[in-house]
């Protein structure tokens, strides 16, 4: 493999990983945007999605459905994982965050951490502590572009992730409910005075964000071939860094942040000791918090016009 195709391959890998981080980061940023809370349970919701995915996929494969109806199978796997986690997301909001909506941010933050531990332990008890294998549905074959190999699985996952992000953008900009969500995020009191049911918009945020995280969980399972109850943690940290980098609260910011964090990680691992790749993510996080806490596309408090 020559240098140019090697670099091309890294770009492919970066886009792949970045799309997954972006999907997870969207969950953080949307929830933060609307209730100014970092949903620390988001990593566990992502993992729950991966578990539902493996359970459904294994079931479908046991009677050969995946081979015969691949697209429908994927639709069912992603659909059920996202639907389950959407319900779980609403439940988390209802139990852990809604009662604390008017209390201090620290109380809600602790409640989020508690929820994270609760869900993580729940998954450990119900799904076990060891890796659970995802049935391999994508082979190693793929297409060759200028020496870089893009596997069918990578193409499928990136296209799906992009489609979801486009759908989300259309939802928040073109639909009545999406606009109500943005209005609630920008000024909750005013949104109420215009007749927007903010409980409903917050609930919908807690459906969409976690559902996107669940989709990312299934993608990770499909690509890496395994899930474990604690796999959410490292993805959570990466996606959190992506959301902060892009500007927490900003949807396009989360997408760009995801791609940048994915790119940094992939290129670091390609040229420098890969054991340090996670350190780079945290270095970026610290630098952003130090130099530009509002992130690339975020709005700093002082910039907001009164």
């Amino acid at each position: 493999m020559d240098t140019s195709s090697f670099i091309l391959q890294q770009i492919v890998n970066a886009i792949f990983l970045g799309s997954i981080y972006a999907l997870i980061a969207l969950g953080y940023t949307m929830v933060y945007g609307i209730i100014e809370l970092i949903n620390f349970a988001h990593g566990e919701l992502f993992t729950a999605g991966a578990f539902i995915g493996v359970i459904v996929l294994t079931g479908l494969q046991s009677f050969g459905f995946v081979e015969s109806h691949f697209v429908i199978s994927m639709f069912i796997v992603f659909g059920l994982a996202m639907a389950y986690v959407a319900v779980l997301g609403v439940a988390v909001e209802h139990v852990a965050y809604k009662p604390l909506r008017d209390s201090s941010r620290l109380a809600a933050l602790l409640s989020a951490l508690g929820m994270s531990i609760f869900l993580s332990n729940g998954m450990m008890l119900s799904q076990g502590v060891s890796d659970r294998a995802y049935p391999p549905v994508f082979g190693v074959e793929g297409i060759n572009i200028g020496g870089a190999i893009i596997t069918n699985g990578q193409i499928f996952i990136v296209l799906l992730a992009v489609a979801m992000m486009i759908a989300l953008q259309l939802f928040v900009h073109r639909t009545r409910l999406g606009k109500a969500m943005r209005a609630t995020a920008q000024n909750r009191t005013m949104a109420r005075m215009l007749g927007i049911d903010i409980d409903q918009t917050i609930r919908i945020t807690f459906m969409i964000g976690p559902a996107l995280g669940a989709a990312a969980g299934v993608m990770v399972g499909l690509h890496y071939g395994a899930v474990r109850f604690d796999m959410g943690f490292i993805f959570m940290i990466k996606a959190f860094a992506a959301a902060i980098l892009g500007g927490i609260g900003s949807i396009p910011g989360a997408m760009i942040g995801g791609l940048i964090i994915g790119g940094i990680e992939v290129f670091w691992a390609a040229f420098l000791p890969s054991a340090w790749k996670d350190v780079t993510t945290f270095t970026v996080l610290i630098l952003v918090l130090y130099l530009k806490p509002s992130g690339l596309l975020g709005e700093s408090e002082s910039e907001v016009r009164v």
Partner: protein
Amino acid sequence: MNKPPLLQLKDVHTFYDNIHALKGISLSAPQGAIVCLIGANGAGKSTTLMTICGVEPSRQGEIIFDGQPIHGLRPEQITSRGIAQSPEGRQIFPRMSVFENLEMGAFLRKDKEGIQNDMDWVFNLFPVLKDRIGQLGGTLSGGEQQMLAIGRALMARPKLLLLDEPSLGLAPKMVEKIFETIIEINQKSGTTIFLVEQNAQMALSISSLGFVMETGRIVISDKASALLENERVKKAYLGE
């Protein structure tokens, strides 16, 4: 021939945490009139509006709107009865366009044609908003934001329009323009207007009734023309 007032507050008390902000407010706004509430900073004028809207619920007393009690309802329910507010600080959605801000004003309405007509009407009242239609709310000047806030409230086609300090921070020419528009809104659509102002002279000159508020209480209520001649009002609020 005594029509019941559109809005009536009877002995309304509101608390911020433990601060007794409204200490038994009683006032009323006749159908189709412009009434104003004047008073110094911190007297409780904005709180009165927020209490009417249900954002700062009253703890005691009655608020009757259009013959029905509305105290105890949630803000979104009160809005659906026909009350819209252009609040203190304008509260524009900063990352939504002028068009979207206006659209949100009509959030509860389903009559597409009526919404379009009202949007045209708002652009007619404030042509500058039409020029800025795609611009984000947060990038507008203070005066433009004020027009957008009033326009957004009008998009709900309210029976009662609450305006909190529409002249605040605006150049004198702009203040005149805003007050002319308030009269136009009242005359053309018959919308009842409840105006909160520090610019007492202007506010009283366009109102039929006026209420003077001091530290959480209404201390004088009278015809606006009488208030303009009232010695106490002249001294304290008209700078004479």
